[in-house]
């Protein structure tokens, strides 16, 4: 097969094939760091288990392979991966622009609230109208919530790190108020909103699995963001602003507009993730609708090296780890919080390996 390819390269499409191979090898090289980082983290996790009297090898046999028992468990992993990919890919754009949006969690809640409002009103719409409407509402609300922080940064130089963290709390408290107060389903004992109208539910891919079309939307959007960042002039401007805002300003780029754009894109993606959680998974708004997807999304983006395309893989990986930690607890009674330790080590290892690669490059 290799020979055939070589023939193609030499005769038919020399240019394109060369680019293709170069890209492929680039991907292979850039994949080394994250893979090594994950291995280090798993080794650390195994050591932690072993030191504390658990079976260390469980981390591979149960946590990684145990998550893939059947189609349904794979579906569940993809279901978890959906918000992580959406948020992670969105944050890649913000981080590329050097915007430290720590507020994806709050933006997710903003999206979930808006999706619930739209999904519980407007009876009689067709699925083809209501489903996109819910998604749109979620994305817009997320973008608006992030936009507050963006505006404060652009207009008042308020640190987005602080404002997005504050907005996280405010969104969580707002949700708590809404589901115990005005949006509460009076008939239910548990504080929750009314159930979304069936036409607003995100359609499932297979009828007896919970996996919904959100995963496809997430992948498509991640690819789109990759193309936007790498191929469009606006994406280029965002990256330049991230690398050097002063240079960008000299080059006539509008820093403020790019900052707002990066903030709103990442917010819209998080808001969409919130909309899918409500419309595709729980069908109601609860106080604790996200188990910290917004924070995990930060790790997803970092592991992906702020590349939206790679966020698809790292989002899938983090979903697998999370799923696996649940299986691990069921089978071996290992505290599920182990997954946080592993995630933390993954990030640190990525950082360390990236540095190591730089050093090796300098030496070579």
């Amino acid at each position, binding site marked *: 097969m290799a020979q055939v390819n070589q023939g193609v390269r030499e005769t038919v499409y020399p240019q394109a094939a060369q680019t293709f191979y170069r890209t492929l090898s680039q991907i292979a090289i850039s994949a080394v760091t994250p893979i090594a980082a994950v291995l280090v983290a798993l080794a650390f996790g195994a050591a*932690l288990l072993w030191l*504390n*009297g658990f079976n260390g090898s469980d981390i591979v046999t149960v946590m990684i392979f145990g998550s893939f028992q059947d189609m349904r468990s794979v579906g569940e992993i993809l279901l978890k991966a959906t918000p992580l990919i959406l948020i992670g890919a969105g944050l890649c754009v913000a981080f590329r622009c050097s915007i*430290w949006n*720590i507020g994806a969690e709050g933006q997710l809640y903003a999206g979930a609230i808006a999706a619930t409002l739209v999904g519980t009103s407007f009876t009689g719409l067709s699925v083809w109208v209501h489903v996109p409407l819910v998604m749109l509402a979620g994305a817009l609300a997320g973008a608006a919530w992030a936009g507050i922080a963006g505006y*404060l940064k652009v207009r*008042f*130089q*308020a*640190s987005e*790190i*602080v*404002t997005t*963290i*504050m*907005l*996280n*709390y*405010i969104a969580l*408290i*707002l949700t*708590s*108020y809404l589901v115990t*107060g005005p949006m509460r389903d009076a008939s239910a004992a548990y504080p929750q909103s009314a159930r979304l109208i069936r036409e607003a539910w995100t359609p499932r891919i297979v009828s007896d699995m919970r996996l919904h079309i959100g995963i496809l939307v997430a992948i498509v959007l991640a690819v789109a963001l990759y193309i936007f960042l790498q191929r469009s002039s606006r994406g280029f401007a965002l990256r330049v602003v991230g690398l050097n805002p002063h240079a960008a300003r000299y080059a006539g780029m509008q820093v403020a507009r790019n900052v707002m754009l990066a903030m709103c894109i990442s917010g819209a993606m998080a808001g969409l993730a919130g909309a899918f959680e409500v419309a595709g998974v729980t069908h109601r708004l609860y106080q604790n609708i996200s188990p910290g997807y917004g*924070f995990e999304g*930060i*790790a997803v983006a*970092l592991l992906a090296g702020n590349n939206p395309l790679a966020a698809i893989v790292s989002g899938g990986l983090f979903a697998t780890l999370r799923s696996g930690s649940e299986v691990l607890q069921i089978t071996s009674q290992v*505290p599920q*919080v*182990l*997954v*946080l*330790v*592993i*995630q*933390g*080590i993954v*990030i*640190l290892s990525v*950082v*360390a390996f*990236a*540095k190591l690669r730089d050093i090796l490059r300098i030496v070579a």
Partner: protein
Amino acid sequence: MDDMMFLTFLATLAGAAWRLATPLIFASIGEVFSERAGVLNIGLEGTMLVGAFCGFAAAFATGSVPLGLLAGIAGGMLFGLLFAFFTITIKADQIVVGAALNLLGMGLTAFLFRTYYVSTGKGIEIAQPVHIPFLSDIPFLGEAFFRQNLIVYSTVLVAILASLVLFRTSFGLTLRAVGEHPKAVDVAGRNVAAYRYGAVMVGTGLAGLGGAFLTLGHSNQFVEGITSGRGFIVLAVVVFARWSPIGAFFVSLLFGLFYALQLMLQAQASIIVPYQVLQALPYIMTIITLVVLRGKGAAPSKLGQPYEMR
């Protein structure tokens, strides 16, 4: 509410505010040092949890509160060493490493607590309130300010000391210069990295102390996630306080005040405002402050940037 009731209410409020502010005061003063030297540590939530856990574990084993506090500080500093290594020596992005340390701190403390202390359910002896002679007998004021434990009193001392060190010593001067003009410090023959390590150690040591206060000076147990987001609030306090230790002291008090007020007003049946409004108030206020006190102002100009030595 009659006047006497109101005064009691205020006295209780002030006392509670100070206690609720205590962990914030320690951690935010620490973070002032760190940020003044140009290092932004968003991993404080994890650091405080490590302090709370180490403090609890040491006091559990030895039965001594002072040893527990030392362990809390040591635990925080050990965690800080990790942060410093990655951000200063390896020059990795401070936000990235901070985010990782939050995950690590939450995960490790919960994992270890669950593995070793779950079944005991036992608590520890905590620091007891010390009534200051005469002063504690002053009506209302005495209750509010002079019947706290030593850890709470020490916040005043720490704030003053921190302010003196930062603004009146050559160490403090150099430390601030490291955050503003690291190149100048480097040219003058001082080691920028060493100062940054020092600042991070002070910062995480105090954050560890703040965490340890929760388990040794207030509750007598460790609970997973006991910091309940205080590590993030600290970041807001520091900005709000314009990177000043004394400012951090008072802004922390303000946050404590809001927190206490929120709890106390809920208990008043006559208040009709949803309690969530009160819960959200400190966060909204922080944002407003950022807008009002706009501009870079006192923010260290090299905050968040690794320094490449020549």
